[in-house]
């Protein structure tokens, strides 16, 4: 009797563990990520303290970065980033076909968030590509580029050598870091925005949407 009860208890514990394991592992990973982020922020604060606090530095840096981004990308792309906060880049190496409705996939570039690949015709999300451009010299206590510089770095790397950038990135399924519902809302905003602002420079893009 005791043996049977003991066996049943063990089986029950194992079953419960199997059920709870995905949640437990996810919670463990999230806690580790938070602790790591706290350590990084603490280190950045310590390093920044040595350099003197300048509340306007990041704002000025971002302003410069926005001007640089604007000077490098097309006017319609700049308007997209200014109005929506992200950039869309057609997949396929940035060649001629990548600009027309035949593009089979595209990327959304967010500042300091993963690049999201999706199917323009259906809006189906494909992957998240997590990639960073850390400057380990940490000139002002942080390795992070200004937001618009991060976007420009991703844009240039995708345009110049899509495969190389994707190979450097950590690939995850949609939803790992960016809420898929948020991306879908962004794609809907993009479609609306393109309809409202449609002009000569947007013609091929509107056909895809």
């Amino acid at each position: 009797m005791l043996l049977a009860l003991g066996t049943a208890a063990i089986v029950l514990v194992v079953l419960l563990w199997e059920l709870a394991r995905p949640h437990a592992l996810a919670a463990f990973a999230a806690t580790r990520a938070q602790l790591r982020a706290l350590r990084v922020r603490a280190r950045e604060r310590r390093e920044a303290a040595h350099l003197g606090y300048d509340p306007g530095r990041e704002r000025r840096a971002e302003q410069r970065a926005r001007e640089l981004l604007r000077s490098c990308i097309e006017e319609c792309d700049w308007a997209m980033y200014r109005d929506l906060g992200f950039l869309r880049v057609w997949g396929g190496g940035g060649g001629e076909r990548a600009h027309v409705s035949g593009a089979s996939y595209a990327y959304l570039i967010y500042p300091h968030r993963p690049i999201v690949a999706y199917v323009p015709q259906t809006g189906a999300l494909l992957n998240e590509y997590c990639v960073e451009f850390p400057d380990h010299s940490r000139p002002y206590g942080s390795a992070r580029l200004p937001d618009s510089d991060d976007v420009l770095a991703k844009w240039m790397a995708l345009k110049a050598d899509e495969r190389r950038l994707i190979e450097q990135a950590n690939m995850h399924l949609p939803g790992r870091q960016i809420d898929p519902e948020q991306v879908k809302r962004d794609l809907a905003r993009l479609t609306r925005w393109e309809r409202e602002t449609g002009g000569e420079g947007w013609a091929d893009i509107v056909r895809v949407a």
Partner: protein
Amino acid sequence: MKLLRMKPGHGEILLAEGDVEVAEEEQRLIEAFRRELDAGMWAAVPSERRDGRRAAELVKSFGDVPRDAERVIFFPRAAGGSPHGADQAATR
């Protein structure tokens, strides 16, 4: 030609500027270019095609830079990101 570098907390900085047709200035550009590549930077040349589309090219040596390029932009090489990167972004 201008050599620019993206910099955290600052935006881009001008590393060097010169005319590639003037030997002395070209040499200065080449040295600055090498310094950045040795520091692990990627170098990109933004450009505009004949149809008005914007593009970019990653170059690995000064010899790969088109002679008529106006700018070369250096930025830290790409690295696979991790969830804590997003956490940092979210908390800023």
